[in-house]
């Protein structure tokens, strides 16, 4: 056996140079946090603090919910180098189905699975066209955009806006988790606070564990100063958010739902074989196929999952507005795609994390929320969002090229 020829550089970097290297190496990741902070600061100042009020922040969470769910599904689609333009109206259409079924007196626990199944069906239809008939996803879903927009108009044609009165259903995007029996003794929401503490502990534990793994194999890790700084700021962020919610009315159901979806999808992408296959297909479809990955099958499932999540987003949105309207879903696809790209999904595929996509969704929805608070005209909002979107992609392309 020959001696090792490649000498890993000894870790004698100074803190300064490490911070610099870290910033340059992960500029893509940090840019989105920086953007988020900048947006928060600007709107807080512009609205004289109204933006940062507990009420508004809870509002922001509830608004972000449906976009975040869509964006998670979109991230998978974009990683495997496809696109889904139909998600907005699929969400609108499935949301309308929910409203109609509720109006007809269906039980809410029957309505939700039925609507989710409808979403899967839509995904199956589009996945079939893309994988079996080989219609490009762009065309399939552009057509879908028209089809489901039309269907949405059709089902709401007779009634116009359909009001939803079911209390359970409305809780989904407007309600809060109940508190523990002992919670009454405190003037904050006890369960929410406990969940927050649990999250901090869990975060520290998993981060420390993955760092230990890296060290065990002598992989490059960040220095302990930076690691601790990162952990502390992360913990502080979680605790601050938790406190805001706990001191208001507790954790919104939307946050619970989004977190569950996020945890499941993050698990699938990072831990399972299916997740590996998704990244492999995005990285090099032909190589993936020749490595025994059934590209068509994976693609099909990713589209089906997108349908499912679009229906979930539809449910959340309908619940949020307490009604289904003929224009529900306009522009959601842009929000979802932009969230993914801002969250670091690569335009050339194969790269992306759902955890970052959530941050991307927060960026987009903070913009929307802040501009609404300021009473910015909707037309102008479109212009701003479009610009941010194209900037994010331009940024990705230029930083990607330099690597």
């Amino acid at each position, binding site marked *: 056996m020959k001696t090792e*020829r490649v000498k890993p550089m000894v870790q004698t970097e100074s803190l300064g140079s490490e911070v610099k290297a870290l910033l340059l190496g992960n500029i893509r990741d940090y840019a989105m946090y920086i953007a988020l902070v900048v947006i928060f600061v600007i709107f807080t100042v512009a609205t004289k603090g109204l933006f940062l009020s507990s009420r508004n922040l809870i509002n922001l969470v509830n608004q972000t919910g449906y976009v975040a769910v869509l964006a998670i599904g979109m991230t998978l689609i974009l990683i495997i180098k496809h696109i889904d333009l139909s998600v907005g109206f699929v969400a609108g259409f499935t949301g309308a189905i929910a409203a109609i079924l509720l109006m007809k007196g269906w039980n809410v626990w029957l309505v939700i699975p039925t609507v989710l199944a409808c979403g899967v069906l839509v995904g199956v239809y589009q996945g079939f066209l893309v994988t079996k008939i080989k219609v490009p996803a762009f065309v399939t879903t552009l057509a879908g955009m028209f089809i489901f927009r039309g269907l949405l108009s059709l089902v709401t044609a007779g009634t116009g806006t359909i009001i939803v009165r079911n209390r359970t259903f409305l809780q989904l995007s407007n309600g809060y988790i109940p508190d523990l029996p002992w919670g009454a003794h405190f003037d904050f929401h006890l369960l929410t606070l406990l969940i927050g503490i649990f999250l901090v502990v869990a975060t520290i534990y998993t981060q420390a564990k993955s760092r230990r793994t890296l060290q065990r194999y002598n992989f490059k890790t960040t220095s302990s100063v930076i690691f601790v700084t990162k952990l502390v700021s992360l913990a502080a962020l979680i605790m601050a958010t938790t406190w805001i919610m706990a001191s208001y009315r507790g954790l919104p159901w939307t946050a619970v739902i989004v977190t569950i979806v996020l945890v499941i999808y993050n698990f699938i992408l990072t*831990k399972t074989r299916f997740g*590996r296959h998704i990244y*492999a297909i995005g*990285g090099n479809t*032909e190589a*993936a*196929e*020749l490595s025994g990955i059934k590209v068509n099958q994976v693609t099909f499932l990713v589209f089906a999952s997108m349908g499912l999540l679009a229906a979930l987003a539809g449910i959340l949105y309908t619940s949020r507005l307490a009604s289904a309207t003929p224009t529900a879903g306009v522009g959601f696809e842009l929000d979802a795609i932009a969230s993914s790209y801002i969250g670091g999904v690569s335009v050339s595929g194969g790269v992306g994390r759902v955890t970052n996509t959530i941050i991307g969704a927060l960026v987009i929805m903070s913009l929307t929320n802040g501009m609404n608070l300021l009473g910015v005209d909707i037309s102008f909002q479109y212009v701003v969002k479009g610009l941010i979107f194209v900037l994010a992609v331009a940024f990705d392309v230029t930083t990607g090229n330099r690597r």
Partner: protein
Amino acid sequence: MSDYILEMKNITKEFPGVKALDEVCFKVRRGEIHCLVGENGAGKSTLMKVLSGVYPWGTYAGEIVLNGETQQFRHISDSERQGIAIIYQELALFPELPVYENIFVGNEIMNGLVINWNETIVQASKILQRVGLQVDPTVKIKDLGVGQRQLVEIAKALSKDVRLLILDEPTAALNEDDSTNLLNLLRELKEQGVTSIMISHKLKEIVSIADTITVLRDGRVVCSLDAQERKISEQEIIRHMVGREIENIYPKREGLEPGEVVFELKNWSVTDRQSRREILHSVNLQVRKGEIVALAGLMGAGRTELALSLFGNVPGYDITGGEMYLKGNKVQFRHPAEAIEHGMAYVTEDRKANGLILIQDVKFNVSLPALHKLLHGLVVNEHEEIVMATEYKESLDIRAPSVQTTVGTLSGGNQQKSSLAKWLFAEPSLLILDEPTRGIDVGAKFEIYTLMNKLVEQGMSIIMISSELLEVLGMSDRLYIMSEGTITGELTAEEATEEQIMAMATKIGEGVAG
């Protein structure tokens, strides 16, 4: 005499975790052919990329002096303006465009604001003549063979009035004839005053063409040998490159008797779905347990197509006739996944296009075809993955800082070893290797051959597709020769000679029209 066209002084270039070049001093005399050799990952390509401005001034340390003037290239176009042209390890032509457009792309002949196509075609023909390529300049690149494409690349360089031509492994994908052609062209260009720097792993051609040979190892210059003063032997180059002697580059297998037939093709015929053309005509072939069977032939003889049609038929050919037997059972695979399940593996010819996921790291790539072995319930066990990948990294001597290194940043040879590792992890019983040593240094070649021997000793069977005659003769037990989609001959390794193989490889398949 010592008029240097180029001097590179104390060039140091670092990548995260790797010092690719370490105080390299490199001098090239005007009008010579200077060969740059060294193991995979020694830093050859990196040095040339520094020179041509791919890595702009400021991202490396050291000085580049061209024609006596210090240069600070910030972009490839800067070096082009100074008469430097580089032809990369991976060709960079546009397959859908005609030859003349490819030659003048980025350097268009303008007539005011519009391109003067007529003049372009006239000029292109002239340059094609100069490189000795007899094709119509209006044919598309995709209709040319690899050797011809290589010449188009050179024509492209010449169209820019090149004075220093850099070729990174130009003959790696060429057959003997095309290689000889190319080397002759380099000699001619030398007469016309063009200086060339050539990187190659083919020592035979280096010995025949080089005026000076510089050997790199681990990012340092080991020595610069003057081949005009005295004749340099291949053995001497190997010694400098690897730091030890390699007696016989084709290691011998211990007298092993191949066992029973494990794989058989009977009258295998395949038609390309799009062009409706039959690309394989009634192929018959047998492979025994513990045997290395070579598929020899020229580029484009249909060997890769054959492999693809067996291994799950990814291109979606129509199998119009014949049967395939694996361990006596008739099989036909609709997807590579099925082939892998049945113990087949296919190491592709083009690792970048369809072998590796370049943006992922070594361990991701190595574990990909057999992830099920690492599954604990639903979860891929990352701990086992790292241990496993590290084992392969060490046993195949993949030179990378760790298994967490992105495969795309590895040198060509180490990428090749990674794609081999990935299939060994799948533990196949029949391994198809498509040009397994393309672009690999002698040391690594020897290691791969040794590995192949070990695998067949363990009972694996290997089909080796190779265009290198010496490799075919040195490594196989038996060989089939293919030409135009048919098997034109079968020989045992003992009886085969180079001449015989060449004769069969150029024979047109009998009884086949078109």
